[in-house]
């Protein structure tokens, strides 16, 4: 029983850490960033590379990945997304192109493979991320073996959610961002540098994807296409949770995680996945604004 609940919690935390960044970029800025999953992938590869070339440990990779993906996110925003604000579905198409680019960049080792060079840690193949010994195992609570790695994910996910909440609701930057979410024109009129704020927010959202990438890399497989399924899940979570509602994202990921865990336990993972899709559709049909919504852009 505890096992099942914990699994559900863990699934939720994974959805959360992936969706968190989207909650900012989509929820707050009205950009459907299909490249988000591939930014997660980049985060995972950052872990691989920093391990090989900088001999950094697993946790040391987290800030590195955050910075790297945040920079990439910044570039995406400056070069592409900024021209598309208000054109929600166009952002989807453009970032889909970005997604393809990122995958190919890694697969072709940023072009090195054309010249017959091989950069260790890149390329088409699977990559390895070594995880600290102490994280490969369990500890016991109330007679149940609890998976240390997953516990770590839960903690980190919640930490970053809290951090994001503080940024959004307890800092002037956050206040400006929320002003922009509600009414960009008005915000601009009030002297908020909307342009700059958008860039920052997008970079931050992308950075979160990087963090997610590090966490994934330790117990999922690292390869160029690992991101695509993630972005779908994250996107569903954000929409179900309610566009622009951080709490909604938290709740939705928790809910979907538990449903998935329970159904998988009583029947099987495939049905669980089917049920999740069903639930998502039902929620959108009967509550299009999401579980916890307020008017965003």
């Amino acid at each position: 029983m505890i096992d099942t609940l914990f699994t559900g919690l863990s699934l939720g935390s994974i959805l959360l850490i992936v969706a968190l960044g989207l909650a900012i970029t989509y929820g707050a800025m009205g950009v459907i960033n299909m490249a988000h999953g591939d930014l997660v992938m980049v985060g995972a590869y950052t872990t691989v590379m920093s391990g090989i070339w900088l001999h950094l440990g697993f946790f040391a990779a987290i800030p590195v990945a955050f910075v790297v993906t945040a920079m990439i996110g910044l570039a995406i925003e400056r070069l592409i997304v900024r021209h598309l604000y208000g054109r929600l579905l166009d952002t989807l198409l453009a970032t889909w192109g970005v997604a393809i680019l990122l995958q190919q960049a890694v697969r072709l080792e940023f072009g090195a493979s054309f010249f017959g060079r091989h950069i260790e840690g890149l390329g088409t193949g699977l990559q390895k991320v070594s995880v600290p010994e102490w994280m490969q195992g369990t500890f016991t609570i109330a007679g149940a073996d609890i998976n240390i790695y997953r516990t770590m994910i839960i903690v980190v996910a919640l930490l970053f959610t809290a951090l994001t909440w503080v940024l959004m609701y307890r800092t002037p930057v956050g206040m400006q961002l929320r002003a922009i979410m509600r009414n960009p024109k008005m915000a601009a009129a009030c002297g908020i540098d909307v342009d700059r704020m958008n860039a920052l927010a997008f970079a931050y959202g992308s950075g979160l994807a990087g963090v997610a990438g590090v966490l994934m890399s330790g117990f999922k497989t690292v390869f160029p296409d690992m991101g695509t399924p993630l972005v779908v899940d994250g996107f569903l979570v954000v929409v179900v949770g309610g566009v622009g509602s951080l709490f909604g994202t938290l709740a939705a990921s928790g809910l979907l995680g538990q449903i998935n865990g329970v159904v998988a336990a009583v029947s099987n993972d495939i049905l669980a996945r089917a049920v999740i899709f069903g639930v998502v559709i039902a929620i959108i049909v009967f509550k299009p604004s999401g579980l916890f919504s307020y008017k965003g852009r």
Partner: protein
Amino acid sequence: MRIDRRAFMKTGLGGAAALASPSLLRPALAADTIDVGVLFSLTGGLSIIEKSLHDATLMAIAEINASGGVMGKQVNAVVEDGASDPKTYNEKASKLVIENQLPTVFGSYTSASRKAVLPVFEKRNAMYFYPTYYEGFECSKNVVYTGAVPNQQLSNFIPWIIKTLGKKTFFIVGSDYIYPREMAKVCKILIEKNGGKYVADEYLELGHSEWGSMVNKIKASGCDVVLSNVVGDSVVAFYREYKNQGLTHDKLPICATVTSEIEIAAMGAEYAVNSYTSFPYFMAVDLPENKSFIERYRAYVKDPKAVTHHALCCAYFQVYLWKQAVEKAKSTAPDAVREGVRGQEFKSPGGDVKVEAQNLHTWLTPRIAQWQADGQGKIVDDYKSPIFPLPYAGYGETESNLICTPNGADKAKLKAALAATK
């Protein structure tokens, strides 16, 4: 691209021509070379494996050319990208067979892609060399199957698990598609025959990497061995979750039919130590051919850490089988190759292999390896010589009573076999 400059130039031009006007491609055929098709996914999710098969194929071709080619002619690879998508596979196969009029194509990793190209090769009577272990139940006269079929991975594996390891209660888990399901079917037959039992037969979406619930089930199932038919990137997540949940292969070993050097390297050996895999080829196979093969391959792909694996080995030696077939038949024509390849033998990195004259599947040597801390398998059990490939083992096909014959699958026997299970 990692193909030699000559081929690069020639096919480069050929490809460009294909762009401008399709009919311009003919000269490439007229030239003093033998063209063959190479069709693996260089982009998309499956390229994680297929790229290595692609490289192995081109390496074999390069070696053959270096040693004088086939019948004195250089072999020229016309490379296409299957893009991990059956639609693309089907289209590229049509291009290679009909547009480029290539009598022989080497390609495919998944059954799905093979099934998608099959109609082209059968309607147009061209030969397809398929290097991957697969589920069997196929008997095309246009395909040479050089990978293992279930009986070559399981016939010794299951008895060995039960008798030698002394594990009797199986938990069968696999990815949700035909190969793992067929493996499971054959496993069950063998398990019951050898006095074991299975407590579960579970599946997970292909490419699914969330194992929390499944491993919980394994814990709760009371099994004493896990038989894994999990394929692709899911494998890594599986083994990691397994250890992260406190299971050890010493007590509850995973015995796998697909987990290869690739996945072990990707997950980190510590997660797989003392688990087992059954394959006809491992890097650890102690043969001089293998040692030099590994070195040559690593040099070829310019990656000193590159790993080799079963499908890769097959992708490599099947080119040589084709070479021998052409030289025997003195022709590259499909029918000639088909007849020529029957009974062809070759000293592969994995030991002797032979194409069975009856069903165009390949004799291979089943081996069982226990994974070590260095990421290599230690071969703990193997046949002394290759064994007969039985694609219809699931139907009780035997050497003496073949269902797949040179005239295709024998429907009557098929029906009889099924009726017999009543």
